């Protein structure tokens, strides 16, 4: 098991290297620079700015400098948020995104899995149609529609919850964004769970279990649930990495200080270091989450073993 983990981590290094190199050069190929804006800067000022951020050096040199700093854990300064380094921004924003995303995923699993199981067991009944119809609605209506509507209803009209702001992560401030983030995930998980449960329920070992005279509850809990979870599990790896690195839409609508917006804003502002920082961070996270998911497989599926 340990040697498997070590092997996977070693394999991650070339992957990350390719990701970093590709995004470094792709970012520079994009038209427009970090200091182009509505107010054109005089040449002296632009030259000073380029020199301050080493952008006046040849590109290969900049690349080597960046990689050198990265090895020391230094993501460099942000061009846009000048009082913060990219490391500061990620360190400040990630706990927020993690809390929001973690809660949203937990909520999604808590509701999505039972919904899917229920729909599979009551296949083609009103319960199934109702649950899957709701799930379809959750997938179809994007969160930039749901979030403002929830804010309007629960915040402005009823006045029960704050419409926006982080407030240090106070519970009332968390409710709306977590629910808004979770809705789509609940829907995905429920649909995935239903499909896989139906498949598992039709398999031979379930028939055997029933033939042995086990009651329905035992069949479901002891035999069907674990294998049915596998597709959800493989979906969860990238989904968790995606959701805990923030959602630009939810963060903007609720004014939350997560790191999701840095992906988009960094790219739009040509804030090279910020984009690179978030890409590297996201890359590492994806590699780790996929590894964890693969390790979890062995818990859910006895046919998978990593120790040989």
């Amino acid at each position, binding site marked *: 098991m340990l040697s498997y983990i070590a092997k996977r981590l070693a394999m991650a290094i070339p992957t990350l290297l390719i990701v970093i190199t590709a995004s470094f050069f792709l970012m520079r190929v994009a*038209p*427009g*620079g*970090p*200091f*182009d*804006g*509505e*107010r*054109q*800067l*005089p040449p*002296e*000022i632009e*030259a*000073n*700015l380029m*020199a*301050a*951020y080493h952008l006046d050096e040849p590109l290969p040199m900049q690349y080597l400098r960046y990689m050198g700093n990265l090895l020391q854990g230094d993501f460099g300064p942000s061009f*846009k*948020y*000048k*009082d*913060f380094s990219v490391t500061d*921004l990620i360190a*400040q*924003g990630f706990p927020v995104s993690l809390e929001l995303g973690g809660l949203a995923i937990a909520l999604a699993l808590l509701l999505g899995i039972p919904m899917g199981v229920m729909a599979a067991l009551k296949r083609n009944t009103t319960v199934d149609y109702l649950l899957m119809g709701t799930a379809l609605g959750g997938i179809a209506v994007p969160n930039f529609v749901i979030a*403002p509507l929830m*804010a*309007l209803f629960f*915040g*402005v009209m009823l*006045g*029960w*919850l*704050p*419409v*926006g*702001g*982080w407030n240090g992560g*106070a*519970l*009332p401030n968390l*409710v709306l964004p977590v629910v808004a983030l979770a809705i789509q995930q609940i829907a995905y998980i429920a649909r995935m769970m239903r499909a896989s449960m139906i498949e598992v329920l039709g398999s031979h070992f379930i028939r055997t279990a029933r033939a042995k005279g086990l009651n329905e509850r035992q069949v479901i809990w002891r035999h069907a649930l674990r294998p049915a979870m596998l597709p959800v599990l493989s979906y969860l790896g990238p989904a968790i990495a995606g959701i805990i690195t923030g959602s630009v839409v939810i*963060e*903007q*609508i*609720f*004014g*939350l*200080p997560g790191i999701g*917006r840095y992906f988009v804003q960094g790219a*739009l*502002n*040509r804030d090279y270091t910020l984009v690179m920082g978030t890409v590297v961070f996201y890359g590492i996270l994806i590699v780790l989450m996929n590894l964890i998911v693969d390790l979890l497989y062995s818990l859910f599926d006895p046919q998978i073993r990593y120790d040989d």
Partner: protein
Amino acid sequence: MTIFARARLTRTLIGAAGLTLGMPLAAAATLNIGISGDPASLDPARVTGGVWEEDVLRDIFEGLVAIDAQGQIIPGVAKSWETSDDGRTYTFHLREDARWSDGEPVTAEDFVFALRYQVNPKTASNYAHRLYPVVNAQKINAGEAELDTLGVESQDDGNTLVIRLAEPAAYFLKTLVLPFGYPIPEHVVKEKGERWSRPDNIVVNGAFKPVRWVSNAELDTVKNTEFHDADKVTLDGVNYYPIEDKNAGISRFQAGELDILRDFPAARYQWLEQQIPDAVKITPSLGSYYYVFNLRDGSPTADKRVREALSLAIRRDVISEKLLDGAVTASHSLVPPGVSHYTPAAQPGLDDDMDTRLNRARKLMKDAGYGPDKPLNLTLRYNSGDEHQRIAVAVAAMWKPLGVNVEMRNSEANVHYSELMQGDFQVARAAWISSYDDAQNFLQLLSAATNNYGDYQNSEYSQLITQSDRELDSDRRRDMMQRAEAMALADYPLAPIYTYAARNLVKPTVSGWDNNALDMHASRWISLDRNQ
């Protein structure tokens, strides 16, 4: 207990904890302002020119001069000043009671340090060029002269500051309300280096002092008791919330989370007027939205007849009234009407009725060689944005009857402006918002090398602008600038479209907040009556 009541209780508890920590009395008189974005920095030398940055810095720093609630210039750290007869030397007498938030006195040396720090090429300040009128500033900024050759001097034991300009610049004093005119505490910068402006290190001389900054969520300040006018400041603090999604900002304002929301979207104007008429504050501001024509060879708009025809055919009233809900005013000039001591010149022909304009436009197009069998294919560039797109679609439709086929190209702002600067366009959307009240700031767009996207070249015009910068008699200066504007507009280097409006939502419980064309509001004049 409802969740909301629990939140209130939590807040009360936090407030109580604050008291025991020696923080100012509760949060009852803390003003909550929704601003358009996060400041790039709290260091006056490293801001990037966003209105929202100036909003914050105006509250935490005070320059030689300051502004009152109406946006008029008043004494700041300087209690008085004189200008020499040749207009080149400014002598500022500083007030004795000006203090930094750590109790140290604010002296002329702090200003000398700040001005040198701004033009130092190593600082890489975006706004150092505003100081180029000062002796040697440009050379120093280009790395061609030593820092101590800058034309600034502390005299009289730090009580007097002298600034020497290379040439008279009549607008110079007005620009000193901007961040580059603020002092910087040398003693703190020496100790903390570049990190001096982080909230845990920063020392300020304005009415409020930053205490906490969560990037992209909130920036909290408390009243600075060392501020010389602190007795008259009634607020306990100001919290700024960067809000990029303006519609979300409106919801937060309606839910009572904000006292002031800066810059609501024009398209929501009528709706807000119906919903919360007491809160809507709107007034024409010092900003011009225009279409710039490329005058370089090879672009069809190098032909003046084409430019004139295109400008004549734009129905500005339709854009301002129908598309933008009446939240802005149609414009016929480059300089907006709100600039004081100035009457803008209108572009010739725009005051005629629409039939006359269209007839003339058709004739001009025919003269230029375009007609039904030879349509003009034109590209129109704009930066991505709902409002810009709607205007572009409308303008394309207005040009259609002239036989103009418009190809629209939109790109994100950085790409858009980078292409404008390279001259890679035919017609493009542009705008200029001035942060000081002087026509010169708009007129230089057509004479300076920077921001003159269409490459308008008129030596007589440039000469008039240079002369007016040096003219000390305000009436003569105004006449020169008006002549210059009329001259340039008659060449149709651009088509004015509308004058921006300052659009704010302000709760009726806020007093001391006045509409002004600069849309600059210092929180030191504001008070809150929560009981109202």
